[in-house]
Protein backbone atom coordinates (compact mmCIF):
# COMPACT_ATOMS: atom_id res chain seq x y z
CA UNK A 1 0.00 0.00 0.00
CA UNK A 2 1.54 3.32 -1.07
CA UNK A 3 2.11 6.15 1.36
CA UNK A 4 -0.52 8.48 -0.09
CA UNK A 5 -3.21 5.87 -0.44
CA UNK A 6 -2.75 4.67 3.14
CA UNK A 7 -6.09 4.05 4.79
CA UNK A 8 -6.69 4.77 8.45
CA UNK A 9 -6.23 1.53 10.31
CA UNK A 10 -9.81 1.17 11.59
CA UNK A 11 -11.05 1.04 8.01
CA UNK A 12 -8.61 -1.76 7.17
CA UNK A 13 -9.56 -3.58 10.36
CA UNK A 14 -13.24 -3.49 9.48
CA UNK A 15 -12.79 -4.54 5.87
CA UNK A 16 -10.49 -7.40 6.81
CA UNK A 17 -12.80 -8.59 9.55
CA UNK A 18 -15.80 -8.54 7.23
CA UNK A 19 -14.08 -11.03 4.96
CA UNK A 20 -12.63 -13.20 7.72
CA UNK A 21 -15.96 -13.48 9.55
CA UNK A 22 -17.89 -14.51 6.45
CA UNK A 23 -15.44 -17.34 5.81
CA UNK A 24 -15.25 -18.33 9.50
CA UNK A 25 -19.02 -18.50 9.76
CA UNK A 26 -19.54 -20.56 6.64
CA UNK A 27 -16.43 -22.67 7.12
CA UNK A 28 -15.72 -22.09 3.45
CA UNK A 29 -12.26 -21.00 2.30
CA UNK A 30 -11.82 -18.63 -0.64
CA UNK A 31 -10.34 -21.60 -2.57
CA UNK A 32 -13.42 -23.75 -1.90
CA UNK A 33 -15.64 -20.90 -3.01
CA UNK A 34 -13.68 -20.69 -6.26
CA UNK A 35 -14.10 -24.41 -6.87
CA UNK A 36 -17.82 -24.18 -6.05
CA UNK A 37 -18.05 -21.45 -8.67
CA UNK A 38 -16.34 -23.62 -11.29
CA UNK A 39 -18.66 -26.56 -10.56
CA UNK A 40 -21.65 -24.27 -10.83
CA UNK A 41 -20.48 -22.90 -14.17
CA UNK A 42 -20.03 -26.44 -15.47
CA UNK A 43 -23.48 -27.53 -14.34
CA UNK A 44 -25.28 -24.50 -15.71
CA UNK A 45 -23.40 -24.66 -19.02
CA UNK A 46 -25.03 -28.06 -19.65
CA UNK A 47 -28.34 -26.23 -20.05
CA UNK A 48 -27.67 -22.67 -21.10
CA UNK A 49 -24.93 -20.66 -22.66
CA UNK A 50 -23.18 -18.45 -20.13
CA UNK A 51 -20.03 -16.39 -20.09
CA UNK A 52 -17.83 -18.05 -17.44
CA UNK A 53 -15.78 -14.88 -16.95
CA UNK A 54 -18.83 -12.82 -16.07
CA UNK A 55 -20.08 -15.16 -13.33
CA UNK A 56 -19.83 -13.73 -9.84
CA UNK A 57 -20.39 -15.70 -6.66
CA UNK A 58 -20.20 -13.99 -3.31
CA UNK A 59 -20.95 -14.65 0.29
CA UNK A 60 -22.97 -11.80 1.68
CA UNK A 61 -24.00 -11.15 5.23
CA UNK A 62 -26.75 -9.23 6.86
CA UNK A 63 -26.53 -9.17 10.63
CA UNK A 64 -25.73 -12.79 11.47
CA UNK A 65 -27.33 -14.21 8.30
CA UNK A 66 -25.08 -15.50 5.55
CA UNK A 67 -26.20 -15.86 1.97
CA UNK A 68 -24.58 -17.18 -1.16
CA UNK A 69 -25.32 -14.78 -3.99
CA UNK A 70 -24.69 -15.72 -7.59
CA UNK A 71 -24.87 -13.37 -10.54
CA UNK A 72 -24.84 -15.35 -13.80
CA UNK A 73 -25.41 -13.28 -16.94
CA UNK A 74 -26.79 -15.33 -19.84
CA UNK A 75 -25.43 -15.06 -23.37
CA UNK A 76 -27.95 -13.86 -25.90
CA UNK A 77 -29.34 -16.77 -27.90
CA UNK A 78 -29.34 -16.14 -31.64
CA UNK A 79 -31.98 -18.42 -33.12
CA UNK A 80 -31.36 -19.74 -36.56
Amino acid sequence: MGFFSRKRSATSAKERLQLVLVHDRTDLTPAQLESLKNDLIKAISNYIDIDPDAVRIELEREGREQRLVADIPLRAVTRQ
Partner: protein
Amino acid sequence: MTAQVITVTSGKGGVGKTTAVANLATAIAMDGKKVVCIDGDIGLRNLDVILGLENRIVYDIVDVIEGRCKLKQAMIRDKHYPDLYLIPAAQTRDKNAVSPSDMIRLCNDLRGEVDFVVIDSPAGIERGFRNAIAAADRVLVVTNPEVSAVRDADRVVGILEAEEKGSPSLILNRLNPILVRNNDMLSAEDVLDLLGIHLIGVVPEDENVIIGSNRGAPVVTDVKSRAGQAFRNIAKRIQGQDVPFMELEQQGGLWGAIQRLTGRK
Protein backbone atom coordinates in the same frame (compact mmCIF):
# COMPACT_ATOMS: atom_id res chain seq x y z
CA MET B 1 -36.31 -15.68 44.72
CA THR B 2 -35.31 -17.26 41.50
CA ALA B 3 -31.92 -16.18 40.33
CA GLN B 4 -30.98 -15.25 36.83
CA VAL B 5 -27.74 -16.99 35.79
CA ILE B 6 -25.45 -14.80 33.69
CA THR B 7 -22.24 -16.04 32.11
CA VAL B 8 -19.47 -13.73 30.91
CA THR B 9 -17.31 -15.19 28.16
CA SER B 10 -15.16 -14.01 25.23
CA GLY B 11 -13.24 -16.55 23.20
CA LYS B 12 -10.00 -14.60 23.32
CA GLY B 13 -8.16 -14.31 26.61
CA GLY B 14 -7.35 -11.14 28.46
CA VAL B 15 -10.17 -8.99 27.11
CA GLY B 16 -11.74 -8.24 30.50
CA LYS B 17 -14.07 -11.10 31.50
CA THR B 18 -12.89 -11.30 35.10
CA THR B 19 -12.90 -7.51 35.36
CA ALA B 20 -16.47 -7.46 34.05
CA VAL B 21 -17.69 -10.19 36.42
CA ALA B 22 -16.11 -8.54 39.47
CA ASN B 23 -17.53 -5.14 38.57
CA LEU B 24 -21.00 -6.26 37.53
CA ALA B 25 -21.44 -8.47 40.58
CA THR B 26 -20.25 -5.69 42.90
CA ALA B 27 -22.49 -3.12 41.22
CA ILE B 28 -25.53 -5.41 41.45
CA ALA B 29 -24.80 -5.96 45.16
CA MET B 30 -24.43 -2.18 45.61
CA ASP B 31 -27.95 -1.91 44.21
CA GLY B 32 -29.13 -4.15 47.04
CA LYS B 33 -29.59 -7.39 45.12
CA LYS B 34 -28.17 -10.64 46.36
CA VAL B 35 -25.52 -11.91 43.95
CA VAL B 36 -23.05 -14.75 43.90
CA CYS B 37 -20.23 -14.85 41.40
CA ILE B 38 -18.54 -18.09 40.42
CA ASP B 39 -14.98 -18.30 39.21
CA GLY B 40 -15.15 -20.84 36.39
CA ASP B 41 -11.47 -20.60 35.52
CA ILE B 42 -10.32 -23.80 37.25
CA GLY B 43 -6.56 -23.84 37.72
CA LEU B 44 -6.24 -20.11 37.02
CA ARG B 45 -8.13 -18.61 39.94
CA ASN B 46 -8.33 -14.81 39.66
CA LEU B 47 -11.72 -13.45 40.59
CA ASP B 48 -10.81 -13.73 44.31
CA VAL B 49 -7.89 -11.27 44.02
CA ILE B 50 -9.81 -8.85 41.82
CA LEU B 51 -12.54 -8.77 44.49
CA GLY B 52 -9.99 -8.59 47.33
CA LEU B 53 -11.25 -11.85 48.87
CA GLU B 54 -8.16 -14.02 48.39
CA ASN B 55 -7.39 -14.32 52.10
CA ARG B 56 -10.80 -15.64 52.97
CA ILE B 57 -10.88 -18.81 50.86
CA VAL B 58 -11.42 -22.07 52.69
CA TYR B 59 -13.42 -24.16 50.23
CA ASP B 60 -13.76 -23.90 46.47
CA ILE B 61 -16.14 -24.99 43.72
CA VAL B 62 -14.65 -28.48 43.40
CA ASP B 63 -15.09 -29.02 47.15
CA VAL B 64 -18.79 -28.26 46.70
CA ILE B 65 -19.16 -30.50 43.67
CA GLU B 66 -17.32 -33.38 45.28
CA GLY B 67 -19.31 -33.00 48.49
CA ARG B 68 -16.48 -31.99 50.82
CA CYS B 69 -18.43 -28.96 52.02
CA LYS B 70 -21.90 -27.46 51.93
CA LEU B 71 -22.68 -24.91 49.24
CA LYS B 72 -23.03 -22.13 51.84
CA GLN B 73 -19.57 -22.91 53.25
CA ALA B 74 -17.95 -22.21 49.89
CA MET B 75 -19.77 -18.88 49.46
CA ILE B 76 -17.41 -16.16 50.67
CA ARG B 77 -19.31 -13.10 51.78
CA ASP B 78 -17.84 -9.70 50.96
CA LYS B 79 -17.17 -7.48 53.98
CA HIS B 80 -18.16 -4.18 52.35
CA TYR B 81 -21.12 -5.44 50.35
CA PRO B 82 -22.98 -8.08 52.36
CA ASP B 83 -25.13 -9.02 49.35
CA LEU B 84 -22.04 -10.09 47.38
CA TYR B 85 -20.67 -13.64 47.51
CA LEU B 86 -17.90 -15.48 45.70
CA ILE B 87 -17.51 -19.17 44.99
CA PRO B 88 -13.80 -19.46 44.12
CA ALA B 89 -12.24 -21.68 41.50
CA ALA B 90 -10.09 -24.60 42.55
CA GLN B 91 -6.47 -23.74 42.00
CA THR B 92 -4.82 -27.13 42.10
CA ARG B 93 -7.35 -29.32 40.32
CA ASP B 94 -7.51 -30.20 36.70
CA LYS B 95 -10.25 -28.72 34.56
CA ASN B 96 -12.11 -32.00 34.25
CA ALA B 97 -13.02 -31.94 37.94
CA VAL B 98 -16.16 -30.01 36.87
CA SER B 99 -18.70 -31.01 34.22
CA PRO B 100 -21.53 -29.06 32.58
CA SER B 101 -24.10 -31.06 34.58
CA ASP B 102 -22.26 -30.22 37.82
CA MET B 103 -22.61 -26.54 36.93
CA ILE B 104 -26.31 -26.91 36.16
CA ARG B 105 -26.88 -28.63 39.50
CA LEU B 106 -24.85 -26.04 41.40
CA CYS B 107 -26.69 -23.14 39.77
CA ASN B 108 -30.07 -24.76 40.40
CA ASP B 109 -29.17 -24.95 44.09
CA LEU B 110 -28.26 -21.25 44.02
CA ARG B 111 -31.39 -20.17 42.16
CA GLY B 112 -33.49 -20.24 45.28
CA GLU B 113 -30.91 -18.40 47.37
CA VAL B 114 -29.94 -15.28 45.41
CA ASP B 115 -31.13 -12.81 42.76
CA PHE B 116 -28.19 -13.20 40.36
CA VAL B 117 -25.48 -15.74 39.66
CA VAL B 118 -22.61 -14.32 37.58
CA ILE B 119 -20.16 -16.83 36.13
CA ASP B 120 -16.64 -15.97 34.97
CA SER B 121 -15.69 -18.17 32.02
CA PRO B 122 -12.13 -19.07 31.12
CA ALA B 123 -10.83 -18.03 27.70
CA GLY B 124 -11.24 -20.43 24.79
CA ILE B 125 -14.04 -22.73 23.68
CA GLU B 126 -13.03 -25.88 25.58
CA ARG B 127 -14.38 -27.67 28.62
CA GLY B 128 -14.18 -24.66 30.98
CA PHE B 129 -16.18 -22.56 28.55
CA ARG B 130 -18.74 -25.37 28.13
CA ASN B 131 -19.08 -25.58 31.91
CA ALA B 132 -19.49 -21.83 32.20
CA ILE B 133 -22.31 -21.59 29.66
CA ALA B 134 -24.13 -24.79 30.66
CA ALA B 135 -26.40 -23.16 33.23
CA ALA B 136 -26.62 -19.69 31.71
CA ASP B 137 -29.96 -17.97 31.23
CA ARG B 138 -28.12 -15.15 29.56
CA VAL B 139 -24.63 -14.82 28.11
CA LEU B 140 -22.56 -11.65 27.90
CA VAL B 141 -19.72 -11.71 25.38
CA VAL B 142 -16.81 -9.38 26.14
CA THR B 143 -14.60 -8.13 23.36
CA ASN B 144 -12.10 -5.36 22.66
CA PRO B 145 -12.16 -3.21 19.53
CA GLU B 146 -9.38 -5.26 17.94
CA VAL B 147 -9.40 -7.68 15.01
CA SER B 148 -8.43 -10.85 16.91
CA ALA B 149 -10.78 -10.22 19.83
CA VAL B 150 -13.71 -9.50 17.50
CA ARG B 151 -12.99 -12.56 15.40
CA ASP B 152 -12.92 -14.82 18.46
CA ALA B 153 -16.07 -13.19 19.83
CA ASP B 154 -17.80 -14.04 16.56
CA ARG B 155 -16.82 -17.70 16.93
CA VAL B 156 -18.26 -17.76 20.42
CA VAL B 157 -21.48 -16.10 19.29
CA GLY B 158 -21.76 -18.74 16.57
CA ILE B 159 -21.31 -21.56 19.09
CA LEU B 160 -23.85 -20.05 21.47
CA GLU B 161 -26.39 -19.82 18.67
CA ALA B 162 -25.67 -23.39 17.58
CA GLU B 163 -26.15 -24.54 21.18
CA GLU B 164 -29.46 -22.68 21.26
CA LYS B 165 -28.30 -20.49 24.12
CA GLY B 166 -29.98 -17.56 22.44
CA SER B 167 -28.27 -14.49 21.10
CA PRO B 168 -25.80 -13.08 23.64
CA SER B 169 -25.30 -9.43 24.53
CA LEU B 170 -22.07 -7.60 23.86
CA ILE B 171 -19.80 -5.73 26.26
CA LEU B 172 -17.26 -3.74 24.27
CA ASN B 173 -14.37 -3.17 26.66
CA ARG B 174 -11.28 -0.94 26.53
CA LEU B 175 -12.59 1.43 23.90
CA ASN B 176 -10.34 4.45 23.43
CA PRO B 177 -12.51 7.34 22.17
CA ILE B 178 -9.51 9.32 20.92
CA LEU B 179 -8.28 6.46 18.76
CA VAL B 180 -11.83 5.94 17.49
CA ARG B 181 -12.11 9.61 16.60
CA ASN B 182 -8.86 9.38 14.64
CA ASN B 183 -10.24 6.32 12.88
CA ASP B 184 -7.47 4.17 14.31
CA MET B 185 -9.74 1.95 16.38
CA LEU B 186 -12.91 0.07 15.47
CA SER B 187 -15.90 2.02 16.78
CA ALA B 188 -18.78 0.52 18.73
CA GLU B 189 -20.84 0.91 15.56
CA ASP B 190 -18.26 -1.07 13.54
CA VAL B 191 -18.09 -3.91 16.08
CA LEU B 192 -21.88 -4.14 16.35
CA ASP B 193 -22.22 -4.20 12.59
CA LEU B 194 -19.65 -7.01 12.36
CA LEU B 195 -21.01 -9.16 15.17
CA GLY B 196 -24.72 -8.50 14.67
CA ILE B 197 -25.71 -8.90 18.32
CA HIS B 198 -27.29 -6.70 20.98
CA LEU B 199 -25.05 -4.18 22.78
CA ILE B 200 -25.36 -3.98 26.56
CA GLY B 201 -22.52 -1.55 27.18
CA VAL B 202 -19.28 0.10 26.11
CA VAL B 203 -16.53 0.36 28.72
CA PRO B 204 -13.74 2.83 28.03
CA GLU B 205 -10.07 2.14 28.51
CA ASP B 206 -9.44 3.46 32.02
CA GLU B 207 -6.35 3.22 34.22
CA ASN B 208 -8.61 3.14 37.28
CA VAL B 209 -9.46 -0.46 36.33
CA ILE B 210 -5.87 -1.47 37.08
CA ILE B 211 -5.71 0.69 40.20
CA GLY B 212 -8.88 -0.99 41.45
CA SER B 213 -7.50 -4.46 40.71
CA ASN B 214 -4.31 -3.60 42.59
CA ARG B 215 -6.36 -2.73 45.64
CA GLY B 216 -8.87 -5.55 45.34
CA ALA B 217 -11.63 -2.95 45.00
CA PRO B 218 -13.45 -3.15 41.64
CA VAL B 219 -13.64 0.14 39.77
CA VAL B 220 -17.43 0.42 40.21
CA THR B 221 -16.70 1.46 43.80
CA ASP B 222 -14.88 4.53 42.42
CA VAL B 223 -17.64 7.04 41.76
CA LYS B 224 -15.51 9.20 39.48
CA SER B 225 -14.20 6.49 37.17
CA ARG B 226 -15.59 6.36 33.62
CA ALA B 227 -15.18 2.61 33.40
CA GLY B 228 -16.86 2.33 36.80
CA GLN B 229 -19.83 4.34 35.51
CA ALA B 230 -20.03 2.16 32.39
CA PHE B 231 -20.09 -1.03 34.48
CA ARG B 232 -22.67 0.43 36.88
CA ASN B 233 -24.87 1.20 33.86
CA ILE B 234 -24.51 -2.34 32.52
CA ALA B 235 -25.43 -3.71 35.96
CA LYS B 236 -28.62 -1.61 35.87
CA ARG B 237 -29.46 -2.88 32.38
CA ILE B 238 -28.99 -6.45 33.61
CA GLN B 239 -31.53 -5.65 36.29
CA GLY B 240 -33.94 -4.59 33.59
CA GLN B 241 -33.57 -0.83 33.82
CA ASP B 242 -33.42 1.35 30.75
CA VAL B 243 -30.23 3.39 31.20
CA PRO B 244 -29.10 5.69 28.39
CA PHE B 245 -25.64 5.07 26.97
CA MET B 246 -23.04 7.44 28.36
CA GLU B 247 -21.14 9.86 26.22
CA LEU B 248 -17.62 8.51 25.98
CA GLU B 249 -16.53 11.34 23.81
CA GLN B 250 -17.34 15.02 24.32
CA GLN B 251 -18.16 15.34 20.61
CA GLY B 252 -20.90 12.83 21.06
CA GLY B 253 -20.51 11.08 17.71
CA LEU B 254 -20.26 7.67 19.26
CA TRP B 255 -23.13 8.20 21.59
CA GLY B 256 -25.47 9.13 18.77
CA ALA B 257 -24.32 6.10 16.81
CA ILE B 258 -24.96 3.75 19.71
CA GLN B 259 -28.37 5.22 20.28
CA ARG B 260 -29.27 4.68 16.67
CA LEU B 261 -27.98 1.13 16.73
CA THR B 262 -29.86 0.15 19.82
CA GLY B 263 -33.00 1.85 18.66
CA ARG B 264 -33.06 4.28 21.59
CA LYS B 265 -34.14 7.81 20.93
